């Protein structure tokens, strides 16, 4: 009986230990795995802590896509919430659904020169589909003094 209890205790201890390890892992992982989404307005206002990885998104400003005069596979464009702009720099092939005048989300950080360096460009896989983040970004911009922004 005693041995049986001991064994149960061992199992319970193991489960507690396992849960503790898991919770620890989760906390560490959340710390480094989460990307907060900021709108171009928030980025311009300097809301983003320096050196942090984050996401920014909005519409790709028409006529802002630039590839000439840049090194290798580099490309520049402006993403906007019609209120403020963020210049995004990216090296690599753009996604198939990337278009000027359509929604885009860029994942990256702001370098010393104040340019957003994207590690990844996301354009969603359905043409009719606008990502929730971009929609929120545009809505947020709308909520502000839309008059000022859209003139």
């Amino acid at each position, binding site marked *: 009986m005693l041995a049986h209890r001991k064994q149960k205790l061992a*199992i319970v201890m193991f489960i507690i230990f396992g849960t503790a390890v*898991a919770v620890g892992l989760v906390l560490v992982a959340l710390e480094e*795995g*989460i*990307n*907060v*989404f900021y709108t171009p307005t928030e980025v311009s206002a300097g809301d983003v802590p320096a050196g942090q990885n984050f996401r920014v998104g909005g519409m790709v400003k028409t006529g802002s896509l630039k590839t000439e005069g840049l090194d290798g596979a580099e490309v520049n464009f402006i993403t906007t919430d019609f209120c403020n702009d963020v210049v995004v720099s990216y090296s*690599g092939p*753009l996604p198939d659904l990337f278009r000027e005048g359509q929604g885009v989300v860029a994942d990256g950080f702001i370098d010393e020169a104040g340019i957003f360096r994207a590690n990844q460009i996301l354009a969603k896989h359905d*043409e009719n589909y606008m990502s929730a983040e971009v929609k929120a970004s545009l809505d947020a911009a709308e909520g502000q003094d839309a008059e000022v922004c859209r003139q």
Partner: protein
Amino acid sequence: MIPELGNFALVLALSLSLLLSVLPMVGVYRRNELLMSLSRPLCAGIWVFMLLSFACLAWAFLHDDFSVAYVSRNSNTLLPAIYKFTGVWGGHEGSLLLWVLMVASWTYAVSLFSRGLPLDILARVLAVMGIISVSFLLFMLLTSNPFDRLLLNTPAEGSDLNPLLQDFGLIVHPPFLYMGYVGFSVAYAFAITALLTGKLDAAWARWTRPWTNLAWAFLTIGIALGSWWAYYELGWGGWWFWDPTENVAFMPWLVGTALIHSLAVTEKRGVFKSWTVLLAIAAFSLSLLGTFIIRSGLITSVHAFAVDPERGLVLLTILLIVIGVSLFLYALRAPVVKGTSSYTATSREVFLLINNILLVVSTAGILLGTLYPLLHEAINGEANMVSVGPPYFNTIFLPLMGILSVFLGVGSISRWKRTSVSYLKEMLVNVAIASVVLGVMVPLVVTREVNLPIFLAVSLAFWIVFGIVRDVLDKSANKASRLAGMKSLSLSYWGMQVAHLGFAVIILGICLTSHYSVERDVRLAPGESISIRNYEFIFEGATPQNGPNYQSQAGVVTVLKNGRDYLTLHPEKRTYYATGSVQTEADIDVGFFRDLFAALGDERGGGAWVVRIHLKPFVFWIWLGAFLMAGGGVGAILDKRYRARVNAHQAAASPAATNLAGQVS
């Protein structure tokens, strides 16, 4: 006319499902054999009408009947016939139809292949399956009927199937995935039956195991195909993104993996019973959660077809009812199905328990990461939405899988009830030394350097492989010849070892390809080239070409190996006529030890393109490992003890189960 026939068949299938979910249950409680035995023909009926309905939708696709709204949204006259057919499950409504057809098929299969099952058990199982059919048929008919017509303004042309889906991957990926998802409904139905009857013995586990293994094998293949499809069709050479869609398919798989191991303990030793039932409920609930998350468009993802709150709400209701009712039943009945066999701390039972805990904890971690953006949004509102990236999932998942691999080696060599520590030492010390030494030596010899992740992955893979070899040698030693010894081992034993070997192969594939891949994005003008290791990739330019329903820029990349002509890759950039959407078609030379990958990015003036070139060693092993795992799962089902028509009575009389039978009732 034909679409109406399809719709009518759906309604008939719904009516029969209603009967199936009610009549056999009534029969059980009234002890009316006639009502119970009605379940079999009802299953056949549902299956026939679902098949008819599916055929009608396929007919509408093949005959370009754009008066059917779903067809007009997902097809086009220019679409090649094969994609017209696969377009049937290319959108929300049609894939739901496929889903229900699969439920009907599994139900019918259970009714066909469970002759050994006592009638009252079978009646309950089929009734639960009937309830599942009813919910999804109602959902389909009320919110997403694939046969809805556009009669007044019939379009002359359809708006085309999403180009991403015009591909071999789509032909096979969803059916396999759904077979897996839906297959867990069988384990679920058996679990509910066990709770209803309070009878959960070795015989129950033996009936449930083949179905669970089969569903799990389908899901394994389905996920592997999805990953393979992402690898070559999404165009960018990644094979796993921790995208919500992938996660929701992966979670039932992890829990299903825990379930097949827990079922083994329940069958062999009569313990972990209520845990097994809980896992069966969880596996199916997670499948439903996946369907809900994807179909409601709740989480931004590749597969979020339709953002429709109404559909989401109905699915959520189904999900909550399934979870709520089963857990309620579980709370009431679980104490009844408790097992009481004893085992010690170094028994196989305990190692399998550890396996289960690790798998469930990793599932919980993935679930948290997948739902975290929603939780965050619910608490903080739409401002500053967050997304959870791969670093989170890798930090959680990889260490747990590492620990799992260590225990896998010990667990599969240990014995039921008790394993002496000296036996484990004798079996495993050499294996451990060999795997650590090879973990250092192999990377060192091949690449002249070694780092911790590579060392761990290679050692763990060798640890599993040598453990298998050691165990097979040990178990086949006492026969006249080695071959005779190996032949005497059961198919379920071989199935287990092959599946574990597959796991080791996946570990190697994932780790080696993650560390040794070279990925380059370069701007190349025609004639320019780039060298990666001993390969040289020369971009010869891209020229326009016409396909059946698209125009493409066909690139030519000549590959030299060690300075000699080796092969040519033909990556394409397609523009589809109907929608104007652009689609990257990568070209991949698949090899056992390495893949060569080329994809066209965008044109950057003067005939120059951004070209993505990858050299990916061992990436093929990821899918090879998955197929070995699935093969092992299927192999284990072929074991002769599942073919014997054992009923509860005989099972209780067999020596393996006698010590359990008394404790169960």
